[in-house]
């Protein structure tokens, strides 16, 4: 049980700065997801908290104590690695009890705590096996078990589900969330998968090129994205963002179409419209030439373009559509309050 505070965390390799100052206060028991595309510095940030990378500048506080220069073993953390990093020559029980053995706990206590964790993770039948005799999902559980047994102040997860198949990933995602709630251990979780971020996070850090684009709850980020990047990264399919000129509460697209936005602005802006917020309306201002439709069952994705604008637009309609909308053209509207406006220069929300 602990709070974690990052203040102005920077990381440079030589002259190349890869993380440009991250600040966040993490409350006790909170699950923070760090999400971003590959190479954005999210794993580096996590490894700095773990003590596997040095912190170039800034402060890392766990429970109020500054731990920038502490060895990984002195930070009271546990980490789950992407490739699980199990000790291949040890049995599942030895893997899970390794940290306790190093700490010279009595044998009885080690066995007891390993047993308890194994029970929680349904690993009891496998305690005597070697990691190579387990399936991917089981290995993942052992890695979790190794973290739980230690009863650390902070859990660190480095893309723990990315080596699993899609179905197992959904299942393990729920298990991790349930487990974290039950244990109430402060956690940092790195992923590149925005769905994982949305479902797991109490709050998320959306990272891009070493910068925290937005820190907030999943719904905050979805409903009020702070930047164009956050807007397009969270939500699937990604938000349509079109350049426009704002004239009061109307944004005029390059082909002259005006869209009501509900935000007062002027000059060059970017209009963001989520595909699922666009509705069919025979009198709507947006006339889409539909190029392709993807029926997904629960909804139908339409790909097309606006006359005079090269950029592709995606619309997501609920349910199955067999009729006219599959080909040709259709008109759409969007509610003013569902439009997001961003500054064309800085990409920040207006």
């Amino acid at each position, binding site marked *: 049980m602990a709070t974690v505070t990052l203040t102005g965390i920077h990381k440079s390799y030589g002259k190349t700065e890869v993380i440009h100052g991250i600040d966040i206060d993490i409350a006790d028991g909170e699950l923070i997801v760090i999400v971003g595309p590959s190479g954005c510095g999210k794993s580096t940030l996590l490894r700095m908290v*773990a*003590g*596997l990378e040095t912190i170039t500048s800034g402060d890392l506080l766990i429970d109020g104590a500054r731990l920038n220069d502490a*060895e*990984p*073993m002195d930070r009271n*953390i*546990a*980490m789950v*690695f*992407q*490739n699980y*990093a*199990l*000790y*291949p*020559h040890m049995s599942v029980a030895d893997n899970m009890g*390794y*940290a306790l053995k*190093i*700490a010279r706990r009595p044998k009885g206590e080690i066995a007891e705590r390993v047993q308890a964790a194994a029970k929680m993770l349904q690993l009891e039948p496998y305690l005597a096996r070697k990691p190579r005799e387990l399936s991917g999902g089981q290995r993942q559980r052992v890695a979790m078990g*190794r973290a739980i047994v*230690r009863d650390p102040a902070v859990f660190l997860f480095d893309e723990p589900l990315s080596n699993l198949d899609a179905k197992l990933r959904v299942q393990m995602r729920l298990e991790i969330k349930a487990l974290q709630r039950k244990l109430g251990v402060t956690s940092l979780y790195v992923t590149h998968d925005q769905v994982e971020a949305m479902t797991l996070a109490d709050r998320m850090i959306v990272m891009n090129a070493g910068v925290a684009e937005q820190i907030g709850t999943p719904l905050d980020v979805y409903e009020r994205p702070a930047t164009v990047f956050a807007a397009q990264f969270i939500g699937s399919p990604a938000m349509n963002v079109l350049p426009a000129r704002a004239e009061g509460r109307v944004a005029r697209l390059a082909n002259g179409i005006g869209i009501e936005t509900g935000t007062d602005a002027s000059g060059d802006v970017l209009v963001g419209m989520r595909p699922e917020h666009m509705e069919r309306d025979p009198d709507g201002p947006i006339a889409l030439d539909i190029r392709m439709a993807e029926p997904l069952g629960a909804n139908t994705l339409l790909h097309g373009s606006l006359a005079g604008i090269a950029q592709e637009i995606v619309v997501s309609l609920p349910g199955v559509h067999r009729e006219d909308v599959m080909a040709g053209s259709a008109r759409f509207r969007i509610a003013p309050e569902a439009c997001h406006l961003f500054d064309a220069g800085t990409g920040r929300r207006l």
Partner: protein
Amino acid sequence: MEKRVTFKGIWLPILLVAPQVAVTGVFFFFPAGQAIWQSLFIPDPFGLSMQWVGLGNFEYLLGNSFYRASFLTTAIFSVSVTVVSMAIALYLAVLADRLIKGSGTYRTLLIWPYAVAPAVAGVLWLFMFNTRIGVVTWYLGQLGYDWNHVLNEAEAMGLVVLASSWGRISYNFLFFLAGLQAIPRSVIEAAAIDGARFWTRFRTIVWPLLSPVTFFLLVVNIVYAFFETFGVIHTITGGGPQQATTILVYKVYADGFVGQDLGSSAAQSVILLVVVGILTVIQFKYIERKVHY
């Protein structure tokens, strides 16, 4: 999936296997057969006649105190060479594995000695330790130590062990380094987070994961010490002083080509063949069980 190639006829596969069979036949089975055959005779020194003695050569050898002493010498020599070369190589490999800057240069320099032929290596060390003009001998003299491997048996043994291990360190280093780098970084990091400091990590994680490499090197180094150190011993000590550095292989040569006792020499090489066979079987049967692949 069936990866085996199946042939229709019998001649093509025979033709493909023939070169390997021919090489093994000419260079192994033929000389080995000759040795076994010759070990049953005593030829006269001029090679004009041979007298059948049955197992007489073996009987004589096993009752001979010089031959039994050579067994002990071989044991001390090969264990020392193996331990010294592997320990130093492992130490250097662990250092090289931690190195980030200049690791290429460091590795290249460490690999060079492997390219030096055993006889040349022997002469090199002989010069350094020459009792009259050797640099090391001179420095040792400055320190008050009178080095003379020509007279002192322990010093002679030490010198041939050193010279034989030297080139071997490079070879072992390469394998240890490759083995260390094959251990996933994250496993080491996980152990670090779990609270294991460097030495604990090495003992509980790195060493067990390195054991296949160590086992392989153990077998290869012992075979090396048994057979391939002839050049070093021949150039440095010639088996002396007395018999202090006469290992079994050297005795095969000394008795056969210097002493002209070809029958005994052949019998010795047969015994050597059996000994190495037994050693290898023991290693694979007992030590390999403790290896984690």
